């Protein structure tokens, strides 16, 4: 709870500090704010508390996911150094919006009441609609914001519709009570309940860009400034999946049989669309957008495994995916700024000009592809072992395995470009000190978790 309050206060404070002439102080300050929030959040570990008549519960699940989301933001913020020198960028507002959206994200992982889930999603989303269009002069950015907003509003409506129907069927918004209501009637309830459940599933699937509700993702991710794309594809996705699992585990465990077929169809479709879609892209940024869809698929796999390992495998996967993605988007941002292109060819020769950038990018690509020695391998490993506890789901793992091999194809295109393709000009890309430090930190973290995954996998 303290972290929600702190984030709100810091967000507002940031806006006022933005009135100062120099923007230089904003970045260190934002980093400081986030470090404070990260630390304060950890104080709630093993200290479960409920707030506002049981609307929010800060338990270990909430603390762990809050930690990941704050850490992700913390690692992302240094890449905003480019905005410091830009005259007409609204840096203070950007930071405030990120801090506010984190408030929404924390509500999404700690809600106890469906209304809180809805409010959390809205707080998160509205900030995202704004930042997607933050590059006011770019047509693509405007298009992205509009598309995201229209689609987002529509699907929020669907989600709300679903919540109301479930309320109609059970008479409560509290997720534990909804779960209890089904047990009282022996599992599945009436058709209104089923319809509501389906609408909620669709609403959240949209937010985590699961197929077939993913169609906005490539355009929005590509159009939005890369800095915010990175936030959307990491923090928003982590919050969405964590909220999704919490909802299913607390409220709809008894109706497992009713939603399982739908969810499994969504999962398989997401895996296929994400991986196959990424193969045919010519732009690295668009590839990363599709790859984020495919990772939503792997995350959903651990959700549908629906057993005691699900929560920790989602946690580990989110962390490894988020850190690797931040590095990938971060390097992409630096490269694109210099070369003016987000295509694969922009990476040509990076291994020679900027060994550090190239190495960080390689490690994050290996991690996203799930190759051992990186966190991504254990992330996939935990997902597959969670799913295989029900050995009748072997077929799902086989599909995922084949698609993971497909994934290597598009991730390695970047690696090949960096180390093996000749470049037109070998001009070194200048990297700010904060960004360099962050890239080193992420690389070390990714390899560390790839060697000793127990550091994180055992905490939940």
């Amino acid at each position, binding site marked *: 709870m303290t972290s929600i309050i702190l984030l709100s206060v810091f967000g507002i404070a940031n806006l006022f500090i933005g009135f100062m002439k120099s923007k230089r102080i904003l970045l260190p300050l934002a980093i400081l704010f986030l470090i404070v929030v990260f630390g304060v959040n950890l104080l709630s570990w093993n200290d479960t508390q409920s707030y506002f008549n049981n609307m929010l519960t800060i338990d270990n699940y909430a603390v762990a996911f809050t930690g990941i989301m704050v850490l992700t933001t913390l690692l992302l913020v240094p890449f905003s150094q480019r905005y410091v020198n830009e005259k007409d960028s609204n840096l203070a507002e950007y930071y405030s919006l990120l801090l506010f959206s984190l408030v929404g994200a924390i509500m999404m992982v700690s809600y106890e009441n469906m209304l809180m889930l809805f409010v959390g999603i809205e707080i998160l989303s509205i900030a995202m609609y704004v930042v997607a269009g933050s590059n006011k002069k770019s047509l693509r950015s405007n298009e992205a914001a509009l598309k995201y907003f229209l689609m987002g509003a529509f699907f929020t409506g669907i989600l709300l519709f679903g919540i109301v129907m479930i309320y109609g069927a059970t008479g409560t918004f509290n997720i534990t009570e909804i779960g209890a209501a089904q047990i009282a009637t022996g599992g599945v309830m009436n058709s209104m309940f089923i319809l509501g459940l389906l609408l909620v599933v669709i609403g959240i699937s949209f937010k985590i860009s699961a197929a077939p509700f993913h169609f906005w993702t490539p355009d929005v991710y590509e159009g939005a400034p890369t800095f915010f794309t990175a936030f959307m594809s990491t923090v928003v996705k982590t919050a969405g999946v964590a909220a999704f699992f919490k909802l299913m585990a607390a409220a709809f465990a008894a109706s497992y049989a009713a939603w399982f077929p739908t969810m499994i169809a969504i999962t398989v479709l997401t895996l296929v669309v994400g991986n196959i879609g990424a193969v045919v892209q010519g732009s690295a940024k668009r590839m990363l957008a599709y790859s984020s869809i495919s990772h939503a698929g792997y995350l959903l796999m651990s959700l549908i495994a629906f057993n005691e390992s699900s929560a920790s495998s989602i946690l580990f996967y989110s962390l490894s995916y988020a850190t690797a993605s931040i590095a990938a988007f971060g390097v992409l941002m630096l490269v694109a700024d210099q070369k003016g292109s987000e295509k694969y060819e922009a990476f040509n020769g990076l291994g020679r000009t900027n060994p550090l950038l190239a190495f960080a990018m390689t490690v994050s690509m290996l991690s996203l592809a799930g190759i051992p*020695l990186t966190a991504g391998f254990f992330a996939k490993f935990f997902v597959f072992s969670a799913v295989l506890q029900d*050995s009748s789901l072997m077929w799902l793992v086989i599909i995922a395995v084949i698609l993971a091999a497909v994934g290597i194809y598009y991730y390695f295109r970047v690696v090949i470009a960096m*180390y093996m393709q000749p470049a037109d000009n070998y001009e070194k890309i200048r990297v700010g000190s904060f960004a360099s430090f962050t890239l080193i930190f992420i690389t070390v973290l990714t390899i560390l978790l790839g060697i000793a995954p127990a550091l994180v996998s055992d905490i939940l």
Partner: protein
Amino acid sequence: MITAILLFWPALAALLVLLIKGQGAKKVAFGAALVEFALSLFALSGFNTENGGTQLALNFPWIESAGISFSIGMDGISLLMVLLTTFLVPLIVLSSFKHDYKNPNVFYALILFMQTGLIGVFVAMDAFLFYFMWEVALIPIYFIAAVWGGENRIRVTFKFFVYTIFGSLFMLAAFVYLYLQTPGTHTSNVNAFYQLALNSGQQSWIFWFLFIAFAIKMPVFPFHTWQPDTYTESPTQATMLLSGIMLKMGIYGVIRWLLPVVPMGVSQWADLVLILSIIGIVYGSIIAIRQRDLKRLIAYSSIAHVGLIAAGIFTLNEQGLQGGVIQMLSHGINVVGLFFIIDIIFRRTNTREITSLGGITQNAKGLSIFFMILLLGSVALPLTNGFVGEFLLLAGVFQFNYIYGAVAGLTIILGAVYMLRMFQGVMFGTKSEATESFTDLTLNEKAVLIPLVIMVFWIGLFPNTFLSISEPAVMNLLTIIKR
């Protein structure tokens, strides 16, 4: 403890080498590889060759909640494979002294790093550690081949990489499944896998999941399509690592993780695997006869040789398995030597085409002798190392089914055909433009070839030195398989 030092020393040395600027890196890398060899001899001295179980073991929890442990150790088979690795890596590094690769520190660091992966595969006694090391060995070799390789390297090595990862992901899925079948709080220890009571239906499909991974690595026909191109396009050192050591990972994987884990699956499919292997022998040999590029020729000959090893170990009798183990050593030594000789010829003449070579014997007596010995080892002439292995393997296959044995025996005749044809074309005849001013071996080249040739004779004359190390382990595995 010595096992852990053996495992981590190359990785540590790799970090050290990375820091060295310029061509000095190769000397440091060579020194580090020699230290590793000395360490492995020390391990040998502490090894009880009477015992068929795991020795020099080390075991501590890795992912405790999941029952996954960092469990390493060696039995006789592992030890021989480790010795092969530690023996060949210094020679491979030494063989590169004439090359000035760009970014030498990265090049040699990757070789040493790969050695950690290779040793890890051979000493891992936990399924997930094995898988982990399996991929750790793959990543450096991919970069070595793809960055320092020939013209088509990007496409070719990428195919190799995706192909092997694709296979190994199936292995991972099978391991996860087996792991979840272990009783109680699950464990992925090799002995727990050996004790699983799976029905024949389960064994049947797990067999394929594991076999695909190993068959791609070896490679067994028809999973070999990545191999000739990759061998040809890679820099010589990478080709040596791939053919000399990495291919043994696949065979070792079969011996350790396939045969004893799913024995019923193996007996169900052994006939098919033997037929595939024998097709590989004949197919590899015939294509080798038709090759004009020396590197491709050896690449195809390697498919034939590996085919025979695969056929031998799937017979599940003592001769077959022992022959497989000893032939892994022999093949590693011979193929590394032959690739090095091709590299020597290529560096002097700038060609690998048999038709544009010839008459090298006239200028280079020393080279001819070494070439001849390695070649005879490769065609399994008695007194050389190849003979011991092929004899045992064929004896094993004959015991299994004499028709298979007869067809597999073609390898000896066909092998002689393509090898001698190659030798004739390259070494005899009139000098060509390219070989006009051919110079004999330098000291450095002799330093690489002499240890190899010594091993050719050692294994050929006193095979018991090596067979006795692996015998208890092989018998132990056979009791597990026949339980």
